[in-house]
């Protein structure tokens, strides 16, 4: 039925309580790396506007992803340099596939 959980210790305000804890609790939180531009949805790359080595400003269109009957503009989240474009025009991409690697302007 529900997940079977072994009795473990849960720390609330420095007191350790013996209790069942689901496996989903306590997974280490990893912050998103915003310099890695990934596909938020599967689709097809229609056009690539950014070239490796070029400078981009925050909001510049990097590429266009055709998905959900929409040409989605994928833009730079910050001003910096394009390190690498890992896809080509016409390529089908999976969800969360890496599209562009950026480097922040120092």
């Amino acid at each position, binding site marked *: 039925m529900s997940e079977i959980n072994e009795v473990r210790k849960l720390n609330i305000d420095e*007191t350790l309580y013996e209790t069942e804890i689901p496996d989903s609790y306590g997974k280490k939180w990893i912050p998103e790396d915003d310099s890695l531009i990934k596909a938020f949805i599967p689709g097809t790359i229609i056009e690539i506007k950014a070239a490796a080595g070029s400078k981009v400003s925050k909001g510049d269109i990097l590429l266009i992803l055709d998905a959900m009957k929409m040409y989605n503009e994928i833009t730079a989240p910050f001003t910096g340099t394009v390190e690498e474009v890992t896809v080509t025009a016409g390529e089908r991409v999976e969800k969360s596939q890496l599209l562009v690697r950026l480097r922040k302007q120092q």
Partner: protein
Amino acid sequence: MSIKKSMNDFLSKVQNLFKGGGEVALEKQKKRGKLTARERVDEILDSGSFLETDLFVEHSSTDFGMDRKKLAGDGVVTGFGKIDERPIAIFAQDFTVAGGSLGKAHAAKIVKIMDGAGTKKIPLIGINDSGGARIQEGVDSLYGYGEIFLRNTTFSGVIPQLSLILGPCAGGAVYSPALTDFVFVVEKISNMFITGPQVIKTVLGEDVSAEVLGGAQTQTAVTGNAHFYAKTEQEAFGQIKRLLSFLPANCLEAPPVMESKPPLHSLPENIIPDNRRKPYDVTDIIKGLVDNSDFMQVHEMYARNIVVGFARMDGKPIGIIANQPKYLAGVLDVNASDKAARFIRFCDAFGIPLLTFVDTPGYLPGVDQEHSGVIRHGAKLLYSYSEATVPKITVIMRKAYGGAYIAMCSRHLGASSVIAWPTAEIAVMGAEGAANIVFRKEIAASDDPEATRQQKIKEYEDKFANPYVAASKGYVDILTEPHKSRDIIIKAFEFAGEQDHGNSFRRHGNIPL
């Protein structure tokens, strides 16, 4: 036409309509392990009580060859009947007729029976078994859903609305059950989702079965969309009857009183473990206090750190909310707050008094909780307790710390009476955490910090880990032992009246959603 012929015509028409989508389709329904719409209605209702309406309704759609199609009852059975001799209104979608698809006439039948339930002020039971909108009828089927949603909402808090999902229920169709008070699902039969596995596969490339995506287990344990889980349709029908036994027919009627019965077993005196870090099952305490030890859990598999459900005390129905130390130490979190708040608001809407059992160390820490909006969700619990005007009795069994103490129907949120056991610890936080903050400098300056820390924890515990500080301020009304609590709770309910917040001029509050 002779009378005899018209009678025979009539009977043969009825016989045809009773066949639904025909023998082949009925056989297919059976092969899926499902009962037919008519069998379902017959099994839920008291024998012979069903009064069917609109059997002869037909659609008037003409596009895509629909003018040549006869659909028995337009794919839905509607009418009135009785459960344990109390009237209810019911509709059951018939999957054997055009896949139970919802067209304009089908929707109009449902709307009519809903209006019947609303004006007669009797509970409504909806049985969902439908492929969704009848595409051939276009926007008319969308109109149909909208009309149903409107009534689900208009009658919310007026009559109890129960939804059985006994087949597919996808797309817009899911929102009628979602707007009702209680949703029942059955293993391997129920499926609910907005976008099905096929769409998800096409759009996202994700492979997921209908069962995993929105089956009975998923809807009860993962999403909380459904409140009751059953292995068979018959078991679900039993759950519906049991649930209705606790509920009034409408918000103006008092909940049904039965003969008072003692619990099957009394509470052992050592029910609370000596060590405050040790768990126990709070349902053992509930069953040791309520009539006949009969406790019907709602959302049993969802957010198990809080337990909610119906029971009786002295024969009168009550709604119980209890922290569950056995699971996640009984902390409050996003899902537990939502679960309890929805239950509290249902009880308050239908005049069912609330009994709260407290043993919680606080809120669940974590990035996930904060990012999921534990502030906003936790606020629902505060809001719903504060808003409730039914009698509210709170029993503090053990830990009642900090914000979680306030949230669990404290006197400050308007409890009619707060009862505490000698094992209660009403404090701003646990001794370990508090000692580390209050005595931080002394612990740091000590030659033996750990010894000093332990000593300070002990000091804090002796002073604050009890019910007496709160009782001395009047935050606790009554101190009693566990085994005497049943009588005290019954008395407290007897003297607690309906509260009047004096704001009946307001249109409605704005609960944080």
